[in-house]
């Protein structure tokens, strides 16, 4: 399903980034990195509107030739970015949403870990397996 999943800290540095191993990892780094522009823009635009009723899901950030990039921002301004293959037309918006929800839940678990230092790279195995699950479905 997803080809790349990334968690980005409030200060816009990556906490976690994982992509399908078959492809050039650096490319996804660039893709996710540049998508942050759009995330920021969207968040700032939404911020002006009703702050409390804010939708966490940002929707499609931007489409490239090969991929679609989706974004999600938690209330603590941690960003999730999921890159999916453009060719996968069967994927619906709802499925993307549920992926983000799952990701968010797992991230919450990570944050609940008293041994996790907020701001450090995520190394949780549980989180890893959740992400793997999202990526495996594609195949």
């Amino acid at each position, binding site marked *: 399903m997803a080809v790349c999943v990334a968690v980005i800290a409030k200060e*816009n*540095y990556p906490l976690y980034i994982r992509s399908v191993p078959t492809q050039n990892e650096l490319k996804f780094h660039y893709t996710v*990195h540049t998508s942050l522009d759009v995330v920021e*823009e969207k968040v700032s*635009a939404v911020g002006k509107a009703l702050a409390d009723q804010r939708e966490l899901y940002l929707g499609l950030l*931007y489409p490239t030739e090969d991929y679609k990039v989706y974004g999600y921002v938690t209330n603590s301004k941690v960003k999730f970015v999921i890159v999916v293959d453009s060719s996968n037309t069967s994927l619906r918006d709802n499925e993307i949403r549920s992926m983000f929800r799952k990701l968010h839940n797992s991230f919450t678990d990570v944050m609940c870990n008293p041994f996790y230092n907020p701001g450090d790279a995520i190394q949780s195995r549980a989180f890893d397996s959740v992400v793997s699950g999202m990526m495996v479905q594609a195949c």
Partner: protein
Amino acid sequence: MSIPDYMQCAEDHQSVLVVVQPVGIVPEDQFFRIYKRISSVCQQSIRSSQRLLYIRYRHHYPPENNEWGDFQTHRKVVGLIAITTCASAKEWPQTSERFHGQKEVFGSTLYDSRLLVFGLQGEIAEQHRTDVAFYPDCDSCPDLERRVEDFVESIFIVLESKRLDRTTDKSGDKIPLLCVPFEKKDFVGLDTDSRHYKKRCQGRMRKHVGDLCLQAGMLQDALVHYHMAVELLRSVNDFLWLGAALEGLCSASVIFHYPGGTAGKRAARKPSISQAADSGKRHRPGAQELLIDPGALTTNGINADTSSEIGRAKNCLSPEDIIEKYKEAISYYGKYKNAGVIELEACVKAVRVLAIQKRAMEASEFLQNAVYINLGQLSEEEKIQRYSVLSELYDLIGFHRKSAFFKRVAAMQCVAPTIPEPGWRACYKLLLETLPGYCLSLDPKDFSKGTHHGWAAVQMRLLHELVYASRRMGNPGLSVRHLSFLLQTMLDFLSDQEKKEVTQSLENYTSKCPGGMEVITLPDGLKFPPVPFTKLPIVRFVKLLNLPVSLRPHKVKGLLGENMSSKSPFIYSPIILHNRGDERCKKIDEDTCWLILFSCSLPAALALPAESGLYPVTLVGVPRTVGSITVNGYHTSVFGVNSDCLLEGLPGVKTGGCMVEVVPSLPRLLLSTSLPRSPHVAASEDISSSVALQLFNGETQTLTVTLDNIGTETLETLELSSKIISTKEKLLGDILNWDIQEAQSHLPLLPGCSLSLTVNIRVKLDFSGQENLLPDLSDDGISVTGLPISSPLRQVLKPRPESKALSADPGKNEHTHFKTLEAVMTFKYSGGGGHVEGFYRELCLGIHVDVEPSVFFTRVSTLPATSMRQCHLLLDVFNSTEHELTINAKNNQDLLLYASECQRMAIQVDKFEFESVCVQPEQSQQQWETERQQAQGSLINSTLSIRWAIISFTIGEASVEGVLNQLVLDHLQLAPLQWDVLVNGKQCDCDIVTDCRVGDPVSLEVKLTNHSKKEVGPLALTLVAFQDYQNGIQNHDLQDAVTFIGSNTFYIDKVNPTFSSTCTGALLFLYTGDFYLSIKFQDDSTRRDLPPAFFGLPTVHIRALESPIENGA
């Protein structure tokens, strides 16, 4: 048309295009100087109509783009300014020819042209021509701007006439079909009379007129025309031109809404207040009607009418609509493959508008679209340009990351493998511009705070590219700097393999160009600060090591003030000097080589193994001058990169720096001894060397200390002191003795010379044995602890029939264990400059002595001697050694003791006058007591001088000091009251027998001399005579034999100190015989406060003899 102009913006639709070109040979700088002056005339208010004309200058314009001039008139080259230099009149015809040739290129569209000739003088220059201007050179053309303005005005006139021409010629005549170059063949053979065709012609013409109106400064008219054109073209589905009309509408609206322009700083428009005012004024009455009848337009629309606001609002698009229309227009353009450039430019223009509106999201959509516009085969240069512009535009809308991404792509494009000559310089420059987008600064200081957070993978890639680009650029220094930076800041993110690669390439680079600490400045002023490798190696802890104690200079405390005052305004205080807050302050001798110093010129060559873990490194430096040195960093060379690392910048190190005070040089002494060096480490760390030796208790050893002056300064002073390290053992006397005078006589000692000093080591520990462990000899009943017993003939020595063997019991061997004594000899020495400044050095020699017990005195007692002035000291001596030994005292004969044998020895001693020894100090009673006891002990000891000798090899002495108790002392003390008994005027003592005759009165005199400090008396003495039968029976019943003449009781009154008192009596012996007289004290009360020994009166032995015959009868 294939070359897009990425710089275009909406308001360019309003301007007229003038091409400025050189003709013939014109130096580039000259040309651009003129070009700059010309292009300063970019907006011109037309005198006649109060309208503004905007001029766009280009020095290069592809003629094919000119062919699209009908489609959008701002693409049409309407003016040509040619610049030429002409040295002589001969060249003039040729130049003129060329100018005409140039005109031909844009000939079809040109309204007017000018030729500016520089350098030509004389006849030809005199002639007055409107289209040619002559100037002597490019610096003296003051009316250049004036000329250009004239030229612009003439263009305006043509433009205005064209506009009027187009607007009015709707009457009857067939409207020509305007078309873009690629359409031309499509219309061949089309029915020109059809309604559809006519409408198309009309629509296109309306649009064209709108363009002209816009250019001519009639914004409202232009809007009206565009609106009509949109209507007309929509009805005939002429999408390309419909798009153009919509774009025109957008451009006009943008110009109206954003008079400041949308191009940003690049082409900031002149203050637009006047223009806004103008646009109001320009508007003619009945603007609303214009919608209905645009053909009725007149040129003199100068009447101001405020009511026109309504119409304007209607014609002009709202900001939201502008974007909508742009989108529509672009979608129409998109239908035509050949209009790619137009579409791209429209996108760019729309993005600029959106950037002003701050609608980044929509702008990004336009840009995203622009990315996908295929312009066919682009040259590499065009690609670079395109990516750069995309990057710029993304930057404009605040998408810095995206901007950086495209800039990087552009940079990579510069060096694409298809390019024959890669532009590494340009690539490098572009890469540098991407740094902010990736949140990367090239200052290592920004990375020193905590862990690095960022897009390490992306940043690392960028740094790698920077390194590569700079290397290919031919600037190895730069690539070394970037690579160092990469290694320093991204170390945590590099895998081991990558680390290896990076370090390897760094070494490769530095082999050609070593990295240093200087700031690298690029020609354009960009500075790269140096990158010190604080993580390679990681320094965890820095400490200034003090010099070894033996070399550490000390300040002479006695020389306060006089030396320091010259250096410091503060009064010297040792506390300040040694302990300045947290700073570590060490004093270091000038020419001593044991100190920690980093800035020394001789670098410590050190190879740290990879992944070594913590590795202590000691750096040693030699200061060259006196003063203070602050150590605030260290210098390393890693992989060929030299770095100066400041301690304060290190994350794990808290020390900010270390202070080293350098004092003038002092001599250095090397100490060697005659005894082997000790493996023992003495208790104190200050000891530079130590010796160890093993001695029997009481033995003396000689130690020769040799001092070599190995420094460069002359040794001037030498002092010696010793200290016994606190020990539980009771020590008698000094352990170390030396003669400093002898050594000091060699001073001053020149460098290279040596002197030697003899030190006697004598150990005298307590010789007393522990009673319970030692054989007790007191059970023989001869020891005396109490009052003297009058047994004058008691034999001194009573050898024991059998000695008690001790070796059987291992528990009793404890006392044979070694005892340890440690002493430190301190040599203080000074000389040279340091001596003048009041510094000295200390050399400590530790002496470790294992003391083996030799003899013990297990018991001490006294026995009175026959004389009251003497007594016998009985010592039970125990040989604890494994050897036979002899012991003697005061010239007595030797006493042989076998191993572990105990014997008693008796020494006859004169009683001592302790009173003279004792000093009355102002100490506590207890202290005074012990001191007194010690003094007495040593006196006794020196008198006794007991010596032992182990027959085979050594001799020593033994001391009784520790074993004497108060009781014994009391017995050994000579009474301060001296009693002299004189019989017949003759001194009488114990052993002396005084002869007298029977019948003769014997005078008896008792004299008391008070040597004590107190007065004594009064005392009463009674004489008692008795006979001793030597069998223990004493006969006191002698009234018949002895008669006292006078009283047998004497009375002595008070005797003051140093005075004496005498009392005399007499007695008469009636029979011959041996008589004894004992003198007893009658009153005990006076004796109570004085020791009994004070009253030791001799017993008088008188032998009464027959009267001689000759005297008899």
